[in-house]
């Protein structure tokens, strides 16, 4: 009787079975290869799903998911389905970098999207550049991402801070006055936004009466507002975003400062307006995308699609950022029929978004020289109550093309170094 330690000799039946299995494998292998072809193409998305930017980040992810569903329903990318892997940067640079490495090294993503926070986006861009992964910054605005720190593999969907300032400055100057006082969030985004607006103001012949730097997450703005009021400006410009902006505007209105000076800002978002009481929804601002665009192709469908997955609520600019980022990656990959990062990054230069993706009246394309999307600015005034819809809280007066608000390519400081 054979013990477990004794080696067994192959008998004839075993050899026959082995030969049959080997033959079967060679017949079956095309199916194995076919199954491999169906392996999803992975897109990594990093956004601050927790923290002060959680609301806008979650909307970016929702927009991206909608795009993934649409693309998969239409046949995917290069015949393969796409899969979105979402990670939380928690508004922290270290966490963002760690998540980027995890997505690229462990999850083997082909593309990267993110982050809302400019500082995190810049840090992630370093990682994606090192790993040669095509990366779209969906919602981080600071100039340098497509300026002095631009990279061959990094494109951006949202506006730069300079584009935002350029779209509103002259209107604010002509309608509200020439002495401006800034309330500025004390990090990369705030600094570049304030600098851009102050530069515009100097060109127009106005003066800056002061610039209050407020830490991210400030809850009480009264000390800064006391200083702003003492400087007697024509306009108080509120630059913080998210809950900081909500706190600041609520307090301005409660103090009655909007009776003493005009209150306005540059970038405004639907998420923030909806979080404010009606009396705090005041001033001239710019939106980066707005949902109520009668007659513009594709907008109604996009609004209806988002309403279905968003509890009946309309899309915001953030939904559009996520949606556009995914469609850009899929569109260029299908056009070039490759996943090679360098080839795709080159093809994205001057890549124009089709009407059903751009969802705005003006031409919308990625500029080859700095990798910035030339997207429109929707300039107008906040409304205390919605006229046609409870969420119609902004009246769009002008839709200005990205080409008209963006500094010339030569002025951005971007010099793209392509890999050898």
């Amino acid at each position, binding site marked *: 009787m054979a013990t477990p330690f004794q080696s067994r000799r192959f008998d004839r039946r075993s050899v026959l079975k082995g030969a049959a299995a080997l033959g079967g494998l060679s017949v079956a292998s095309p199916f194995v290869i076919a199954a491999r072809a169906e392996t999803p193409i992975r897109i990594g998305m990093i956004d601050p799903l927790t923290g002060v930017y959680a609301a806008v980040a979650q909307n970016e992810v929702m927009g991206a998911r909608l795009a993934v569903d649409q693309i998969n329903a239409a046949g995917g990318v290069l015949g393969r389905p796409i899969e979105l892997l979402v990670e939380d940067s928690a508004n922290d640079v270290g966490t963002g970098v760690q998540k980027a490495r995890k997505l690229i090294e462990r999850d083997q993503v082909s593309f990267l999207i993110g982050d809302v926070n400019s500082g995190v986006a810049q840090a992630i861009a370093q990682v994606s550049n090192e790993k040669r992964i095509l990366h779209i910054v969906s919602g981080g605005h600071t100039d340098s991402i497509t300026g002095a720190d631009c990279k061959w593999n990094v494109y951006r969907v949202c506006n730069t801070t300079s584009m935002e300032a350029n779209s509103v400055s002259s209107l604010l100057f002509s309608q509200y006055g020439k002495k401006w006082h800034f309330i500025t969030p004390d990090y990369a985004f705030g600094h570049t936004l304030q600098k851009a607006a102050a530069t515009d103001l100097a060109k127009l012949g106005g003066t800056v009466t002061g610039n209050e730097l407020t830490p991210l997450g400030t809850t009480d703005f009264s000390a800064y507002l006391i*200083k702003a009021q003492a400087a007697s400006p024509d306009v108080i410009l509120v630059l913080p975003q998210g809950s900081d902006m909500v706190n600041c505007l609520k307090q301005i209105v409660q103090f009655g400062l909007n009776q003493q000076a005009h209150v306005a800002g540059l970038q405004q978002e639907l998420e923030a307006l909806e*979080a404010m009481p009606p009396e705090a929804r005041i001033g001239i601002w710019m939106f980066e995308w707005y949902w109520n665009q009668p007659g513009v192709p594709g907008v109604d469908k996009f609004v209806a699609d988002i309403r279905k997955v968003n509890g009946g609520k309309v899309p915001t600019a953030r939904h559009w950022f996520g949606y556009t980022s995914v469609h850009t990656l899929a569109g260029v990959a299908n056009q070039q029929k490759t996943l090679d990062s360098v080839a795709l990054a080159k093809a994205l230069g001057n890549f124009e978004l089709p009407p059903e993706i751009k969802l705005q009246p003006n031409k919308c394309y990625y500029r080859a020289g700095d990798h910035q999307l030339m997207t429109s600015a929707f300039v107008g005034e906040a409304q205390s109550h919605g006229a046609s819809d409870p969420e119609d809280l902004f009246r769009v007066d002008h839709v200005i093309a990205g080409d008209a608000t963006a500094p010339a390519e030569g002025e951005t400081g971007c010099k793209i170094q392509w890999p050898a």
Partner: protein
Amino acid sequence: MTQLLLFNVTNGLIIGAFYALMALGLSLILNLSNVINFAHGGFLVIGGYIAYTITPYVGFWGALLIAPVLTAVIGFAVEAVLIRPLYGRDPLYSLLMTFGLAFIIEDGTRFIWGAQGKPVTIPPFLARPLSHEFFFITGYRLFMVATVTIAVGLIFTLLRYTRLGIRIRAATLDLETVAAMGVNVRMLRSLNFAGGIYLAGLAGALAAGQLGLEPTMGTGLLMPSFIAIIIGGVGSLTGTLIGGLLIGVASGVTAVFAPAASEAVMYVLMAVILLARPRGLLGEEGMMT
């Protein structure tokens, strides 16, 4: 400049009163139960969201009365289920528990009410400044200070003159002896914890009218409250009150000269006081008032 300074000192006192309300709740729990409640900011958020949810049914004033009580009930349950089993262990356990609880509460509120902030409207007569010159003294801020004053007065009266208060103070000094005298220490701790959470709930219901109501609202308010306790001296409620007012004024005055340092100044003040007087201003181990 003098006027600006005066403005900011007054403004700092108003903000400080709010910090003091938060810090008193923290201090109550820390003194008796030896629990560093990192979830205190979370309970503040719960208070704010409950007030927001019930306002359509009971109005602003009804919500202000009911929301802190409901928050305290939640606090009572949390103490009984999660905190109580950890009393016999190293205080690090309860610290880690409340640290985790803070994240659970933040994500829980985000799950229930959504990540997007909620608009909270206060009665119009409170939402305007009392004078053109002192524009930062609005009806609502004055009302907040009045509410904080009343709440603090009630807490001090309760601790000094009622049987429950005397037992809490005694137990803070010597828990074993109080237990040996037949006092139900378990219930005493639960009620004390709920009392501290009541103050957090009240702070949340008040803050919702002043700040944007969103799941991370408590995060920025928690650290100043801890600093207020440390400056005032652990174990002293009066010290906590003074600590809250002091950091409010220091922050306001710094904003005149160096706005960017207005938050950092709290930490500098804490470091200076700890160097000069390591127990804090009025701190003495086991002292209540």
